[in-house]
Every structure is written in C-alpha cells, then in structure tokens.
C-alpha cells in the first residue's frame, strides 16, 4: 500500500503553463487522464513516531495547499462518480474536488457541508479506505485519490483563514425537537433539523458535548479545538446544547413530550456501556475498561495530572485486549502515557483486525507490539490487589464463523504469561440501558439496541433513533448518516402531524417514501 515515503511529500510542481493555468482557474483540470494517473498519491505530513509518542498532539498534520492541489489533480472526474456511492452520506466528492482545483476552498467545504455538517471531523476519523476511496476508479490500477485528506484540507483551510460563514436559516418553525446525546448522530441530526428551521435542544449526560468524539477518540486523532469549533458551529445554527442532563433520569422521554413541549425526540445515546471478558482477576487494581481508560484521559484530561485532578495509573508494561479502533486508541494512549511496552492482544490474526489500516500502521510505527492469535484467560494479581500479569492462551484459526471471519480455536498446552501491570479491555460496548428502561413501549433487541426501521423510526410515536444505540457499535460516519436520515423522517413526521392534525387517527397520514433508498 505505502510505497511512498510518508514524510517526504512527492512534489512534482503542478503544471504551470498559461493555458493550463487558465483552465485550472475555471475549475477544469488541464491534465489528460493518462497524465493524472502518472501523479503519485500525495501524502499528508505527519509527526514522526519518535516525537508523537511523547505528546498528545495530532499525528497527521494534514496536507499543504500545494499537496492538496496536486492530489486534486489526480481525480479522474468520472462521469459516474462511484466515490459518492461509497459515502454513507453521499458527499458530492466530484464537485468539491473541482472547487479545490479552482482554489475555491471555502466553496469546497460548503459543498461538503450540504450533506455533511462535520467535515473537519470526518476528514480525520472516517474509514475512507473502506468507503469512498475503496471504490475510487483511480484505485483500480493505482492508488485511490486521498479524498479524506482533501476533505480535511478544505475544512482546516476555512478554519485557519477564519472564513466560516454560518449558513442562512429558513424562517423558524414553531415545533421543537429534543436530541438525546451529542455524539456524531445527535449533532448531525440537530444540525439538519436546525437547517430546516426547527428549534432544537441537544441533551448530554456529560459536562461537555461531543459524546464519543469527546470521551473516546483521543486528541492525537481529533484535537479538542476542532471538536469545540464544530460544536460551536452547531450552536451557531441556533441549537441549544444542554449538558449535565441524563434523559431517563433528569427527565424522561414522556416528560420531554408532555412537560417540555417537544414534538419529536431523536435518540443518539451511543453504545457506552463497556463489556468485560468475565475472566478471573478483573477486580484487581490496574484493570480498566477501554471506556474508563479513555474517558479519564480524553474527557477528564488525566494525562495532565496533577494540573487536572483525575488520576490515571499506567504500568511500565500494558496489555490492551481487542482489535478494534477503540483498542488502537487505548494502546496508543497507553504508550503516550509512558508505557515502555504496550501490547495489543488479539485473538485472531493481523488480517482480521477490524481497526482502520491507518491506525494499525500508526500503532506499529509507535512501537506497539501486536500479540496476535492470543486469547487472555486470566488476569494475575500480585497478592496485594494489583495486576502483575496476563495469562493467555495461543489460538489458531479454524473455519469461518457466522461473521465470515475464521474462528479462533485454542491451542492446547499453549499457555503463556505477559508481564504487565495494567490491563485494558477493549472488547466492545453495548448501549446504555437508562433510556430503554425508563421509556415504556420502546422496543429493544436482545443485544440492548433500540429497534428502528429504515427511516430510523422506533416503536414509540415521535421517537427516532440512530447511531450505535441502534447499531450496537459502528462508525462515526454511519452514526451521522442515521442522524441525517432521522432528521428527514422527523421533518416528514412533523409536517404530517402539523399539516393535518385533524387527520390523526383517520388512517390517512401514512409516512411517505423517502426520495432515495439509502443502504446502511
């Protein structure tokens, strides 16, 4: 994949002759397709691994204007832009890249914002390699266009130049909507509803907005000033963000309707309850769920202890159990907190690791040791209540299971022990049960997720849901797609009710079909 050296951007100077410059100014790529294919994929500048394991600042520094222009020139401008079909929210990738060629970067970011209100976040955390870039035509014979890094470039350009202009809002409608959870699903739903003129209040249980973007994703992947800026831009749409409010406890869904006067509710409370393996030794000091570990560091800023009061305890040797993006975030965070050895213990092989390729590579560069085909069976204590080791069993891969991945099978007599003082379990999360248990009539699955149909409608009238609460653990962009789709459904729902309140109960007001079918 990466034959290009990462830190020396390839910079054959862009074509500078007059006619080409004119065409470029008009937003037309002067290069023939064959010439475009000759340009190698441009890479963002990154902090070196040596530097970044000592800090929490962002790993990728993004593309310079020159690199971005060069990369944009690689786009083949397909007549049928399949990249847009690869995007869960159908960002108009072709048009935004053409606007980059025109050097209209603000136009480009606003083009993205038409369908995705959080471009500087998606440009950083979206798994582009399995979405837009996976289907890019250029990627069939060469490397795909670096769509994610271009998205990030225009968003960063706009921010650094201070050129953001809040979109014009339609006349304010009388109806108000409650959005529960200020993660990617909730923020997107709120932005979409506000842009349709609804009054929106977003409720969050924590003291800061952003949900998993705040407590889960580390600063070295998503700097907090970027997140603060994006949430401020949601507020700029007239959205109220009410923190320190646990829906289900501070007020129930029924109270939001009956006492607070909301006309619809979107639930986007994510999957915040950590799973534990259930192996012996989980009560020892030094065992964390990835959620607790990351929340202490990201939300509570334990890495700045004692300037911030929340402590974190990290051993010289740390084992993180799991293979997802959360596991990668935890193990790389442990390294930055000073762990000399940071192991990632995963029961399948390298091929099956579900984390993003970029994160796996970054972790390897940072000296993370991958202990693959290995399954923890017991956390060993030192007799005084502290972790001193992780007893594991080696695995081999058998036939594919229901998920299509090869099933790990224990190898008899293969026990081994990792000497560690900290164990972090990153083996998945499930939805928090508070809302489900306080909302009568809300259907849930046996996995604890809220059941929704293809319009994000729940079993309760006026209540919609999406993101990890409905999916049980997915990506930021899929949560955003759900939030966006739910906003459409809420809009139809309120218009149906608002336009013909007398018709309610007459069986006339069937929900209309959406204009386009969107696949998850």
């Amino acid at each position, binding site marked *: 994949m990466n034959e290009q050296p990462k830190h020396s951007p390839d910079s054959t100077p862009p074509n500078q002759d007059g006619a080409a410059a004119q065409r470029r100014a008009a937003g037309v790529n002067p290069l023939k397709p064959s010439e475009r294919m000759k340009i190698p994929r441009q890479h963002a500048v990154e902090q070196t691994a040596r530097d970044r394991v000592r800090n929490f600042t962002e790993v990728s520094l993004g593309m310079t204007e020159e690199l971005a222009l060069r990369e944009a020139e690689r786009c083949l401008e397909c007549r049928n832009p399949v990249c847009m079909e690869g995007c869960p929210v159908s960002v108009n990738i072709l048009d935004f890249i053409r606007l980059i060629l025109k050097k209209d970067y603000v136009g480009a970011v606003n083009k993205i914002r038409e369908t995705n209100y959080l471009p500087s976040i998606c440009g950083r955390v979206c798994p582009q390699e399995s979405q837009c870039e996976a289907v890019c035509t250029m990627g069939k014979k060469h490397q795909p266009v670096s769509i994610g890094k271009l998205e990030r470039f225009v968003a960063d350009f706009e921010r650094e130049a201070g050129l953001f202009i809040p979109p014009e809002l339609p006349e304010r409608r009388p109806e108000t909507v409650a959005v529960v959870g200020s993660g990617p699903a909730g923020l997107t739903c709120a932005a979409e509803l506000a842009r349709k003129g609804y009054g929106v209040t977003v409720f969050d249980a924590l003291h800061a907005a952003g949900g998993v973007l705040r407590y889960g994703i580390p600063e070295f992947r998503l700097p907090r000033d970027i997140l603060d800026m994006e949430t401020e831009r949601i507020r700029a749409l007239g959205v109220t963000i009410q923190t320190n409010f646990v829906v289900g406890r501070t007020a129930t869904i029924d109270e939001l309707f009956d006492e607070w006067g909301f006309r619809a509710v979107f639930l986007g409370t994510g999957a915040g309850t950590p799973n534990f393996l259930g192996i012996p030794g989980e009560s020892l000091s030094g065992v964390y769920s990835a959620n607790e570990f990351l929340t202490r560091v990201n939300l509570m800023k334990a890495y700045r202890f004692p300037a911030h*009061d929340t402590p974190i305890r990290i051993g010289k040797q740390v084992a993180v159990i799991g293979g997802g993006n959360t596991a990668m975030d935890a193990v790389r965070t442990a390294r930055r907190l000073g762990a000399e050895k940071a192991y990632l213990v995963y029961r399948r092989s390298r091929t099956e690791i579900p984390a993003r390729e970029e994160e796996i590579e970054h972790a390897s560069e940072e000296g993370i040791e991958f202990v693959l085909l290995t399954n923890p069976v017991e956390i060993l204590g030192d007799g005084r209540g502290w972790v001193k080791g992780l007893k594991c069993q080696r695995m081999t891969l058998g036939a594919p299971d229901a998920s299509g991945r090869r099933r790990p099978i224990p190898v008899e007599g293969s026990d081994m022990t990792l000497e560690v003082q900290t164990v972090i379990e990153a083996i998945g999360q499930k939805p928090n049960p508070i809302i489900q248990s306080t909302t009568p009539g809300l259907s849930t699955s046996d996995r604890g997720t809220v059941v929704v149909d293809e319009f994000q409608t729940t079993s309760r009238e006026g209540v919609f849901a999406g993101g990890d609460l409905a999916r049980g653990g997915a990506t930021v962009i899929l949560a955003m797609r759900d939030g966006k789709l739910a906003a459409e459904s809420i809009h139809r729902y309120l218009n149906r009710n608002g336009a013909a309140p007398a018709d309610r109960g007459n069986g006339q007001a069937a929900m209309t079909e959406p204009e386009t079918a969107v696949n998850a």
Partner: protein
Amino acid sequence: MPPHPPRDRQAPPPNTIISRRLLADSIGKFDIYAPLIAKKRKPGNFVMVRATERSERIPLTIVDADEDAGTITLIIQAVGKSTKYLLTLYAGDAIVDIVGPLGNPTPLVAGKSVVCVGGGVGTAELLPIARGLRENGNMVRTIIGGRTRELVILEEEMAGCSDEVYVTTDDGSYGRRGTVVDQLNDILASGTKVDAVYAIGPLPMMKAVANATRDTGLKTTVSMNALMVDGTGMCGGCRVNVGGAMKFACVDGPEFDGHEVDFDELIMRNRTYSDLEKFADCQS
C-alpha cells in the same frame, strides 16, 4: 430558547449554593439550587459533581430536597481535593457541574421493623432512606456512629424520623463506647423483632454489619461507594462483585444485598489511586 418548563426570572443560576452550614470542622451541609434534580430525586439517588473545570467527577448522595425551593441538600466531608475545595464555598458561590439524579432509588419495605445503621458521613446518605422508611410506616431504629463525638452527625434529624436512636463513638466521647456493629449485635441479641437492616458507611463497617446478620439471613441492604468517573454506566470503574456477577454500582445499584457483595475485592480496588489522590491534594 426551547420550551423549557417555565423558569422563574428571579431564580438563581443553576448549581448556586443557597445556604451552607458546618456540621463539624470537616463536614458541611449545602443547599444547592438544582430544580430539575430536586423535582425528580428519590431516597438513594446520587449526583455527580465536578467542583471546578479541573476537578474530578465525584458521586455525592442527595440527602434531601425541597421541590418548591428547587434545592437539593448535599452533605460533604472534606477528605480529598474536590471535597476540601467544596468546603471552601459559601452561599452565592456556584458549583461548575452537577448531574442527576442517578442510581436506583432504594427499595423500601413497608410496615416492618427495620434497623438503619450509619457510620460517619454515611449517616447523611442514610437520612433520606430512614425518612422514607418512616413514611412507609416502618418501626425505625437507627444506630449512628463515628470515631469521635465531632463526627457524629444528624442526630436530631435522625431522631425526627426514628422511633429509637442509638449513638456510638469509637473513643467513647459521646454515646456508647464502641462501634455501630456492637450496638446492632445487642439489638439482634435482645430478641427484638427485626425484618431488615439498611447500612451505609465506610466499606469495612458495611462488611461488619453484613457479617453480623449473615447467619440469620436477615435482609441487609448496603450502599456501594465505588470509584466512578461518569456515574451513568459508561466506565465500569464502579464494578462490584455481587453474588459472583459483575454489577455497576452507578446503574445497577448503588444498593445491593450485603450478603452477596464481595467487600474485600472492592476495599482493595478503592485504594487504586490513594497515593495519587494524596499527591494531588498536597499540590493544591
């Protein structure tokens, strides 16, 4: 603004301290303006409090509430950095973040004979439960204790909702010399009919109470003060081994059957940060 329930224009900003009184040198009683929480709270509920922008989130039991005044009552003992800071606040000051009510309300029996056992500042957490039990028509006997006279709190309030109140101090400076468990053992040995015991205090005290009632199988409810970060079920830091199953004190509790709780595990794990907490404290 969205259609919040009507707000009184004269009302103070949320989380403002309305009144503050010291119960002992290191124990303060605060009435705090938090109308949404005041309206919803039930005995056994707690709030998560972040004292300043740099503070930890700490769980504090809601001792009382006045729905009309929109206030909740917290009783805070200065033991760590956050609680010491909170004790420096006065009426008119505001606390940065308060969220709740959290946890499950205490399941209260009705029409029975119960003993409430409170140790140290745990007495504050016990008060709303004792009141609830009294309202449910129970015969309420209350035992409260502390290391020394100064740390025995809320005797008058407890007397107001109990049929009998017993006081113990470790050093004998007030009430009976001994522990609350000594007093409980005497009551149990006297043949008095007791249907349930509610105990809140330091973990070793609750463990001793659970051990005292274990043989008779007398229903004993204890309240787990585990380490917590969010208080809403997200971190798992407050996990407690109850009858061999992992429970989260914040969403499955905070009250559990004292005979099922593995106290020793929790006592060990609650020490995880004790040295760091001291360090943070002396840095301030």
